[in-house]
């Protein structure tokens, strides 16, 4: 039948409205929420690329990249895509310049990164001066921090590095009985020195008459410990303590196995988990205390998020992720959560001050579990340490039992001094 003009117009009109309705959601999805700019959020990332700590920097960067992929696939932060601007962390002077460039030239919204202590100390004052949120991955230790960044407004720091030494001492007292003499081999810089002092101070609370019989201070990057091992053998300690966290852990483990060192003494490697998948069963015995900092990849209580991360990381890089991945992941996940929280209150993309307020006391679901920032801008999380075992399906050691040590137990509370706090424990 012949279509009348009215009928024709009705059909066209319906088609137009119909396609509009079908087309509209696609348009709506691309739009951000009310009060949110449409351009991407720029996150500056500072990662070490060369030298002994390069694998740590790479791990952190991979953690952030994995996070960014996930977040962008889910639509971004409040609909804004995330754009990472990667810069290298090297010497303090050069890193400060790159930090300034990220803030003043690239105009990033936030900076995530910073591993080495020296760089951390240099960046603190710069952050406060420029008024940019800086979320550090690592980079803190006792001395110097209180002087340069006493009450940070914009800088958010990682856990105190001595936490691992405290944890190691607690587990030594728990798992190894009769430790009377201790030898230490630590890297000759602030982290190594502080860890040794903290470990002995903490262990003394449990075993007041424990004595240090030898302390060795090879610098980072030494590749031959045979002479050090000879000295340790002569000192005949009950326990060897080491805060090695990079390739030197693997090397000393190998060279110690070659002379059967750990048949005659126990050992506590507070931070050796940083290179955990290079500690092969061939030369790493069972029964040593090994610390994995804030992320243990094989935790029986691991969340689906961690399991997925470990799976995808292994598939992509053919390695198992070390703890720096979670330090990095947490900083950017906390930033996102803080933005969302502040947005809910403000009704528009929040200003930096509002984001800082939201970050204080925040808690998020990170790779390793719940993590957060204290009111004084220091991370709160769990530390994972345990006793090495060969009973697993890998060619390297894992830990069993896995002791979960929260920062409330191994990190000094806000405003207190480390040794005062250790001496105040009820043991």
């Amino acid at each position, binding site marked *: 039948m012949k279509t009348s003009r009215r009928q024709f117009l009705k059909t066209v009109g319906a088609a137009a409205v119909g396609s509009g309705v079908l087309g509209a959601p696609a348009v709506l999805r691309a739009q951000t929420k009310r009060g949110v700019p449409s351009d991407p959020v720029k996150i500056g990332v500072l990662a070490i*690329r*060369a*030298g*002994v700590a*390069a*694998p740590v*920097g*790479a791990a952190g960067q991979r953690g952030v990249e994995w996070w960014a992929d996930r977040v962008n696939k889910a639509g971004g932060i409040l609909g804004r895509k995330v754009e990472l601007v990667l810069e290298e962390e090297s010497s303090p002077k050069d890193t400060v310049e790159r930090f300034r460039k990220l803030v003043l030239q690239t105009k990033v919204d936030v900076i995530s990164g910073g591993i080495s202590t020296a760089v951390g100390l240099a960046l603190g004052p710069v952050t406060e001066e420029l008024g940019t949120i800086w979320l550090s991955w690592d980079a803190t230790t006792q001395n110097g921090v209180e002087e340069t960044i006493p009450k940070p407004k914009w800088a958010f720091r990682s856990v105190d590095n001595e936490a691992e030494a405290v944890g190691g001492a607690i587990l030594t007292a728990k798992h190894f009985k009769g430790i009377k003499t201790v030898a230490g081999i630590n890297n000759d810089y602030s982290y190594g020195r502080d860890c040794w002092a903290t470990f002995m101070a903490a262990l003394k609370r449990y075993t007041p008459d424990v004595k240090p019989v030898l*302390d*060795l*201070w090879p610098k980072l*990057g*030494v*590749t*031959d410990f*045979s*002479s*050090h*091992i*000879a*000295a340790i*053998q*002569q000192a005949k300690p009950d326990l060897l303590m080491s805060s090695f966290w*990079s*390739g030197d852990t*693997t*090397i000393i483990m*190998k*060279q110690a*196995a*070659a*002379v*059967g060192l750990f048949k005659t003494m126990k050992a506590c490697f507070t931070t050796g988990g940083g*290179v955990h998948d*290079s500690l*092969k069963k*061939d*030369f790493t015995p069972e029964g040593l205390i090994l610390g994995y900092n804030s992320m243990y990849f094989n935790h029986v209580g691991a969340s689906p998020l961690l399991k997925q991360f470990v799976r995808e990381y292994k598939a992509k890089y053919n*390695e198992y992720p070390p703890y720096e991945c979670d330090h990095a992941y947490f900083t950017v996940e906390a930033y996102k959560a803080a933005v969302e929280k502040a947005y809910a209150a403000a009704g528009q993309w929040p200003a930096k001050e509002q984001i800082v307020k939201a970050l204080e006391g925040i808690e998020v679901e990170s790779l390793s579990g719940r993590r957060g920032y204290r009111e004084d801008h220091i991370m709160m999380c769990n530390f994972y340490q345990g006793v090495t075992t060969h009973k697993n399906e890998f060619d390297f050691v894992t830990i069993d039992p896995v002791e979960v040590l929260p920062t409330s137990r191994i990190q000094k509370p806000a405003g207190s001094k480390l040794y005062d706090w250790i001496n105040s424990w009820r043991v």
Partner: protein
Amino acid sequence: MLAHALNVLLSGVFHAAILFLVAAGLQLVFGVQRIFNLACGSFYALGAYFGVSTVTVLTGAGLPRPLFIVALVAGGIAVAAVGPVVERLLRFVYDRDETFQLLLTFAVVLMMEDILRIVWGTAPTSTGGLYLIYGQVRALGVTVPVYNLIVIAAGIAIALLMGYMLARTRFGRIIRAAAENREMSEALGVNMRVVYVKVFTLGTMLGTLGGALVIPSTAAMSEMGIDLIVEAFAVVVIGGLGSMRGALAGALVVGVLRAVAISTWPELEMLLIYLIVIAVLVFRPRGLFGAAAA
């Protein structure tokens, strides 16, 4: 007490064997070509990384694990093929001021650091547990890994070979002649250009072999080459620049003293070595075996 002294001595000699190989390469090149090749440390690192790769590939392809040392030595020797390439680069500064030579070889060091990082990545690379595969020897209260003894034996063997080559073979005579008086040697018909390439490659090979031999006991890490240059410098000053015997003596002094310092006064380890360097420079500037200044 004896056991401990023996332990210290053995660990010192092990370290000295590796230092000797790298320093010998340095001395050979300096003696003939008058170039202080800072890149000796980079060749050491290259030999280490390449050695790991060779072992990994060949044992993965079916080479029985106890034969890994064959793969290692083969890899260490094969990668010395970069020698002629670097030599070609250095040809530009043979007759120039020493500062140009130092700058150019230092540039090679920096470039090599990055090349190693690009090819092998940043994570420490090692041969895993193969170090322990030959077991240990227990004697006089001391436990020594057999592998360490193999490396010490290799160092001695190479020192003897080098000595024999320099004293008894035609090539050795040419090297000594070129080191003593280059113009006269050329006038007598020696093709200096070819000699230079051969000597430089031999020097490179000593470095790469040193790196390959040490790697099972340790791990290849960033900046291992740069750290070694510092020690090699001390070896060469103490032993005397340009002398093979100096390389051996200097390596033993540095290696054993380092081991002794670590056992007695660890904080002084590097300081002790440099105190000796200063003492040598003050009392016998040409080193223990160096030629007297003309």
